[in-house]
């Protein structure tokens, strides 16, 4: 640590350049991770807020809740652990507002999902033409009591409450009554719901025409979700590998320049482990400094980023990514170690 600190102190510009490279890489990875998380959450926030483990859909719906219709018989037995959910895509139209694409979720007021909805303001739905909507509607100028139409339906719906983080498939969610879902879909007979969700991890619907899935299976089948998540994961993984290469190359060059000095120290009896520790400490110090600055920049970004940009700053996830970068730096720092260990003190004897 002594040698590492002294070198960083003396070589301020060189160290500063390496730290700035790590800051840029770290900041880019943190922002990409936050974007990936933000987008992932915009797909899944609503489902996650319901507190469900298992989801039953029509077996022919290709694990897509919007394409699923279940009759009363297919829905099976509904206990206090189950709830019916009707999902459909809608467009909210109101005079003076831009059209807003949304996902309508119909619920029954006596079931647990309805009770799990956390309101940011207002109250829950009590009547047929009342809605609780995602807070992103506020950005479009809607307030409590605002009215709008859904699709080409002539009925005017009133916003009676706002709920936070109610997004599904990157669209804001509009909660209403299950009967309203039937009306919007034009269903008069037959299906009573899109899905049956359960908070019982062992729940399984064995009715013919119905199939029960894990929540994660349904999430992964959301249109575009997996492609988007995989893209981000690959980008982050590549950046990790790039950071490993950059750190390894920089440290390798720095170490190679010091080998004649190290050979003299070895001749003088300074143990190899002191020189190895100096190299490893140097990489850790430079990377930790870079990551701290990148974290500060990311925090500043979190404060100034507009609410409309889907970014989520999740401390455990970002800490894990930071830990990953540190691990990459450690591996990068170990590459020049072989040269340090093989330094030949004999090379400095004689002219």
């Amino acid at each position, binding site marked *: 640590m002594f040698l590492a600190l002294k070198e960083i102190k003396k070589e301020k510009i060189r160290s500063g350049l390496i730290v700035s490279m790590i800051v840029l890489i770290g900041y880019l990875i943190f922002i990409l991770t936050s974007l990936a998380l933000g987008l992932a959450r915009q797909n899944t926030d609503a489902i996650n807020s319901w507190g469900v483990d298992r989801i039953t859909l029509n077996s022919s719906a290709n694990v897509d809740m919007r394409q699923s219709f279940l009759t009363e018989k297919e829905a099976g037995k509904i206990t206090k652990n189950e709830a019916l959910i009707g999902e459909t895509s809608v467009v909210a139209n109101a005079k003076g507002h831009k059209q807003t694409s949304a996902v309508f979720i119909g619920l029954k007021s006596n079931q647990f999902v309805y009770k799990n909805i956390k309101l940011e303001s207002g109250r829950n739905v009590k009547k047929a033409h009342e809605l609780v909507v995602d807070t992103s509607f506020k950005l479009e100028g809607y307030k409590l009591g605002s009215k709008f139409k859904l699709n080409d339906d002539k009925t005017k719906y009133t916003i009676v409450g706002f709920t936070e983080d109610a997004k599904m498939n990157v669209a804001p969610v509009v909660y209403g009554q299950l009967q309203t879902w039937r009306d919007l879909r034009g269903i008069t007979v037959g299906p009573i719901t899109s899905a049956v969700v359960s908070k019982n991890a062992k729940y399984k619907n064995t009715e013919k025409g119905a199939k029960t899935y894990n929540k994660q299976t349904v999430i992964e089948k959301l249109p575009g979700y997996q492609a988007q998540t995989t893209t981000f994961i690959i980008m982050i993984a590549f950046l990790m590998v790039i950071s490993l290469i950059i750190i390894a190359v920089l440290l390798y060059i720095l170490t190679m320049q010091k080998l004649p000095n190290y050979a003299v120290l070895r*001749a003088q009896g300074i143990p190899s482990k002191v020189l190895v520790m100096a190299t490893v400490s140097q990489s850790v110090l430079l990377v930790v400094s870079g990551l701290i600055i990148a974290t500060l920049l990311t925090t500043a970004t979190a404060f100034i980023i507009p609410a409309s940009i889907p970014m989520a700053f999740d401390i455990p996830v970002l800490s894990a990514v930071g830990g990953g970068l540190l691990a990459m730096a450690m591996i990068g720092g170990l590459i020049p170690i072989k040269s340090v260990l093989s330094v030949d003190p004999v090379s400095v*004897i*004689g*002219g």
Partner: protein
Amino acid sequence: MSSFSVKNVNQIFGSGTAEVHVLHDVNFEAEPGTLSLIMGPSGSGKSTFLTIAGGLLTPTSGTVEVNGVAYNERSKKKRDALRLDSIGFVLQAYHLLPYLTVADQFKLVDKVKPNGNLSKEELDDVLDTLGIKNLLNKYPGELSGGQQQRVAIARALYPNPAIILADEPTAALDSSRVAVVGDLLKDLAIKHNKAVVVVTHDARLIDSADHLYEMKDGYLTKKEVVKA
């Protein structure tokens, strides 16, 4: 009692037709308080001798003893510790760490070997003798070649070794400085009771030597010291 001895050392590099016999039955002893000069032309085996004497290379046959203990009987780690404790290398390529001030060069030794080094007063005395006491806060890049060489000498002395092995210590110095370094090495031997062994081409150092050896084609022969 001899603090440092080389007994029947042979060094052979390569094998078969590529075999080179670099050192032939070399015997050498260095007493505390004396300066021994080993001279000889390039390629005569001086550097190989110094490498073996410093425990950096194990000879093909023969032994090197420091304070009665042979290098061959020590592990690599213990040989490192022995070099740090008992042998001060003054190298032609002194390569001081460029990011350590002169004072930090000594602190590095303290980090690795906290006990048995020169006291502050003793170090001050050495720095004073070498004329570098006012350079403690300077980096090697801010020093002349001669100043760096003197810092390297002080650095070699700081662990308070019994033996000083110097490799061409005057190679980077002009004529006026050669006598100064010669006197300094002689002074080190007498004042600090060290066994100082200098390998050099430089005949101007003979005036400072107590013992003179000639290395020729791998044979080491003792010569009479004839001072100018």
